[in-house]
């Protein structure tokens, strides 16, 4: 007779609350104060697009229409650049102290309406309310506040040289952190005395246009900031407009390269914040429970719609089994569903197109022989959702280990030595961020030196701050956003 297996301490019975008792809904109910239709914001006013065309902005959690957004054509982009060019001279000539005061005001007015903006952001983009409430909106306000203080200190930006504004800047931002990316782009540009024409992503235009209301309330001079909404064609018009002295783009590496080619015949200055495939490296001496929290935060924050997401886990062989077991147990507890629910960890995937990209790459992972794990979760019937997903037995050549998935999908690889970890981590065309988990200080500093990435998180992950420069190596782009270093990209030689 076979003996019953001995219970081991490694696999204790685990209580998973959501399995036993269903959570009560805890919806955030603040009014997002949405308009039925949003116009373009040009020269300080909301104006109808010249061709009279609009497109729908959808709530990805319910697939229901939220609002109509103006579709900017070339004539509208042109009008926006004319407004910005007209406003530039006076704005640049304004004493820095006064420019700064506008930015301080914008920060304060955004803080006043934080809850409303958080709900709007969650409705429009699908991210969990706890993230838009605790991260996106307060961090956006912080960026305005931080950069406001730089506006009268241009002579301290670059030692040994006097700097001046660049002129009119064209900016195109992605849909993963709509308001926050807008703040990253606007605040330093304005502080240094530039004027802006900015295009939000077509699936997430609403908070930009809500911010336009704040710019009006703040009394910002007309034309200093202009928002043109639309899709790829509008973006290309913004990037390619001859009145732009500089362009700044955040988005995929593919589109970034296309813009670089589009502008190859010009002397246009550029900042590119592109894709990533960050390695999150766990050594056997790491505090494993903390590391698991960091891994979860690294890949499932904002449904993995993060350019610096820790999407490749490199775990040292000796602890790989334990880390994977802990990780599986941990993601059983993630709550996937209604983004407006305060208990939700993973909200909706931003769009139908992105959901199909994720599905396609996950299918490739399965086909190429990696082992998939998804916890049993009940996804809402309507809306775009994807469960947290782990791949084990991944090799470096698998597509899930090479391509940016931009979804809640983690590829797990193992390593034996420090050198192997470095080699594998750097074996990518990207170089935006990396994570290291170890108790050994000297190893952290060595890893931080050897990893070819613009941001290295040691025993932490996905931390951001307006004072901390952010940006990539290699095909993750060039230029920095944040800190004193980020300001240089919005200045020229005086």
């Amino acid at each position: 007779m076979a003996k019953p297996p001995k219970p081991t301490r490694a696999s204790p019975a685990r209580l998973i609350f959501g399995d036993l008792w269903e959570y009560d809904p805890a919806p955030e109910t603040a009014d997002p104060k949405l308009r039925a239709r949003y116009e373009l914001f040009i020269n300080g006013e909301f104006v109808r697009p010249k061709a009279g065309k609009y497109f729908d902005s959808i709530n990805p959690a319910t697939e229901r229409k939220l609002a109509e957004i103006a579709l900017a054509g070339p004539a509208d982009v042109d009008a926006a650049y004319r407004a910005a060019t007209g406003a530039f001279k006076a704005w640049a000539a304004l004493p820095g102290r006064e420019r700064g005061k506008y930015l301080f005001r914008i920060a304060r007015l955004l803080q006043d309406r934080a809850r409303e903006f958080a709900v709007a952001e969650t409705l429009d983009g699908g991210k969990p309310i706890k993230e838009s409430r605790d991260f996106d909106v307060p961090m956006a306000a912080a960026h305005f506040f931080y950069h406001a203080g730089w506006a009268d200190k241009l002579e301290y930006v670059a030692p040994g040289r006097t700097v001046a504004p660049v002129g009119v800047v064209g900016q195109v931002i992605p849909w993963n952190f709509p308001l926050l990316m807008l703040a990253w782009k606007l605040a330093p540009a304005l502080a240094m005395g530039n004027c802006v024409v900015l295009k939000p992503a077509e699936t997430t235009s609403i908070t930009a246009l809500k911010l336009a209301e704040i710019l009006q309330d703040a009394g910002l001079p007309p034309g200093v900031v202009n928002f043109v909404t639309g899709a790829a064609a509008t973006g290309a018009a913004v990037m390619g407009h001859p009145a732009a002295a500089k362009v700044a783009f955040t988005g995929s590496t593919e589109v970034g390269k296309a813009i670089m080619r589009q502008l190859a015949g010009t002397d246009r200055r550029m900042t590119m914040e592109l894709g990533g495939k960050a390695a999150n490296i766990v050594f056997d001496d790491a505090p494993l429970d903390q590391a698991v929290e960091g891994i979860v935060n690294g890949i499932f924050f904002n449904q993995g719609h993060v350019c610096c997401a820790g999407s490749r886990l490199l775990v040292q062989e000796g602890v790989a089994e334990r880390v994977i077991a802990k990780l599986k147990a941990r993601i059983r507890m993630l709550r996937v569903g209604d983004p407006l629910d305060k208990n939700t960890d993973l909200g909706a995937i931003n769009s139908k197109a992105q959901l199909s990209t994720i599905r396609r790459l996950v299918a490739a992972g399965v086909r190429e022989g990696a082992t998939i794990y998804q916890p049993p979760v009940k996804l809402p019937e309507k809306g775009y959702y994807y469960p947290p997903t782990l791949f084990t037995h991944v090799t470096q050549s698998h597509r899930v280990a090479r391509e940016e998935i931009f979804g809640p999908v983690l590829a797990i690889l193992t390593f034996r030595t420090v050198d192997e970890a470095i080699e594998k981590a750097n074996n990518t065309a990207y170089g935006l961020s990396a994570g290291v988990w170890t108790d050994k200080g000297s190893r952290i500093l060595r890893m931080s030196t050897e990893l070819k990435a613009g941001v290295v998180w040691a025993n932490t992950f996905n931390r951001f701050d307006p004072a901390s420069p952010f940006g990539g190596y290699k095909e993750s782009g060039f230029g920095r956003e944040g800190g004193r270093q980020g300001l240089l990209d919005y200045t020229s030689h005086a």
Partner: protein
Amino acid sequence: MSTRAPSRLPVTKTPKVYLGGAFVRSESARTYKVSDASGAFYANMPQCTRKDLRNAVEAAAKAGPGWAKRTAYNRAQILYRLAEMIEARSGELVASLVRFGAREADATKGMTVCVDRLIHYAGWADKYEQLLGSVNPVASPHFNFTVTEPMGVVGIIAPDSPPLLGLLSMIAPVIASGNTVVALASEKVPYPAILLGEMLATSDLPGGVVNLLTGFRRELIPTFATHEHLRAIYAAVEGADRTTLRLGGAASVKRIRFVEGARAQWFADSAQGLDAIREFVELKTTWHPIGS
């Protein structure tokens, strides 16, 4: 012109480019004829090819990690040593510049600026970090700091004029921060770059840190543009060459910088400084929690 043979025929030097720490002719065995300012035949220069460029990038990539790991103090001393080597042979360099058409006074002035500029950057090697990096006051319990790192292998396309000062002014800030270099010398006046190679070889600079090519821009610029392992380009070019570099560089998201503004005033002090160093470093920000 005398038809009589001189009593002693001078031994002329066969020009070889300094590549991977060795003096080589082009792998293609191609050469092109260079005449001096009077139009007299001077020498057959190596007409370097795309393959030579790739070999040079390989040498530079191999030398990169070791050079980047040298202490800043050590890099400073090596740049200073290079200035010593050039000062000692400045007569020969001036003579070669004059032979190829420079006025004596300009050539002499150019030489002193070359040496002084190297010393300027030797001094920067252990100082720029404190000006470009920072400790950042983040609003959370983390220690957060930004440091610079070299970009890697940088492709340099030197101006035709001034041939030596232009080349050196571009190389010095790039290697001061630990990058390695593959440089294309002036097409019109390549010979001073041959002499420079000989001085690089005796300056304690590890082989492969600076690799010099001679040849034709139109043959080599397209490969500079597309070679994936060149992480950055620093070029004194205009017009269509700029477009070629940008178009080719987009595929690997290269950092592409052109010589313009104050930096094109080669002889002036304003042509040098921290900015040129800053343009060829990456910024890396590291976070670590404070406390436990």
